[in-house]
């Protein structure tokens, strides 16, 4: 099992979510986050003052994925979250040690 964290542009969330549901993904956790990569934020102007706003609002999606679905989930997120311009975000994949469903006590892949 893998834990996949995708940081994406906020307006892409619905598109990504719909495509993942179509793929058979049962659940996800979404957080509003701020950060920067090579995009390095943007400029804001208020009267005489200009600010470089480094931390840009993004959405982070966390999904627990069985190994056999990993590749297609990655491809789906890349396809749907991509605009082609700078600031499209990143996907981080890490090993997932165990998953427990609180209601039933099921573990691992049957708990995803």
């Amino acid at each position, binding site marked *: 099992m893998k834990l996949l964290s995708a940081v994406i542009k906020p307006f892409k969330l619905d598109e990504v979510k719909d495509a993942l549901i179509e793929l058979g993904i049962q659940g996800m956790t979404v957080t509003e986050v701020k950060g920067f990569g090579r995009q390095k934020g943007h400029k*804001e*102007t*208020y*009267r*005489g*003052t*200009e*600010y*470089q*706003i480094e931390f840009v609002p993004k959405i982070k999606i966390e999904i627990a994925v069985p190994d056999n679905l990993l590749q297609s989930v990655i491809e789906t997120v890349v396809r749907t979250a991509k605009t082609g311009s700078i600031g499209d975000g990143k996907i981080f994949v890490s090993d997932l040690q165990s998953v427990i469903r609180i209601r039933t006590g099921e573990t691992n892949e049957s708990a995803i």
Partner: protein
Amino acid sequence: MTDALPIDTGDTAWLLMSSALVLAMIVPGLALFYGGLVRSKNVLGTIMQTVVILCMMTLTWILWGYTLAFGPDHGGIIGGLEWVALNGVGLAPSPDYASTVPHQVFMFFQLMFAAITVALITGSFAERMKFKALILFALLWSTFIYSPLAHWVWGGGWLGKLGALDFAGGAVVHVSSGMAALVCALVLGVRKGYGVEPMPPHNLPMTLLGTGLLWFGWFGFNAGSALGANEIAGVAFLATHTAAAAGGVSWMMAEWMYRGQPTVLGVASGIIAGLATITPGAGYVGPVSALLIGLIAGALCYAAVVWKVRLGYDDSLDVVGIHGVGGIIGLLATGVLASIGAKGLLFGNPGQFGIQLLLVLTTALFALVGTYLILKVVDLMVGLRVSPQDEELGLDLSQHSERAYS
């Protein structure tokens, strides 16, 4: 006096209405205008300053502020204490002020001016002044700066006798608060993190709502200063609106040319700059002069706020750049363009410009020196700034134990 002056019901109705309009400028107008411009941790603290100033100035104006400003003249310098607690300020019109409305109604209209002037200053030390210090400052400033100035210009004092023109408070309200703001910004120093971390306004729609209420209320402020429902009120009404619109367009264009993009805050600021600038001349100029005054105000006030950033002092919400600079331009422009009820330089009265210049310089000097002394006294008594920890935490929690948004 044996016969009481007759009361004009139309004039009285308009002055009562105008007083309520100026109230709307203060709360919620100015409170929201300033509240939207600060960071979210300071919005309540900022709104609180304006609201409490309105409450306090009501008490002090009734008790001693009005008599110092408008009471029987002593040497052209100050009003006497004869009218303390409105003793003798009754329902019959005063022969000296607004002689067609009850004296108390005129007093009340002036109360609103006293309150908004002090509230305007709070923009300069936003996000860092101790609440206790604010209260002391407001009490001292309104007593020792506002009341004497109002007396000099409007209360039978020496500047008014010289023929200085200040229709609705370019000097008494805007230059005085603008110069006080400059001293406050310099004495209190910059906010923690100023110039290093971003301090963007937390809610510009709130500021826009405030802008609209200020604009709306300004009809009472300026057209009400005709002190009657008459032609001059009409002149001021039209001039006020025209200058506001011209100021908005002018600031937007200046910003567009200089920075490459027009901003909402720019248009809002330009509107306020136009309104502040037309204030001293509102009842003395026609619509084309008002338009010109608004255009000049928008561009020059924008230049002033850009220049502020280079100078490095933290007049946080641009009271100097908008009210100080706007007031000065407006007073001088009145000396040039006045054509209704008074004549300016272009209308065959060059001497008026000199008088206006004297009015600007006197008001500025008095406000600069007086505010400095008052700040020193308040600093000795309670200290001016919140602690660095409290500033970091924000005024809402550190001064009032409340949060605007949970």
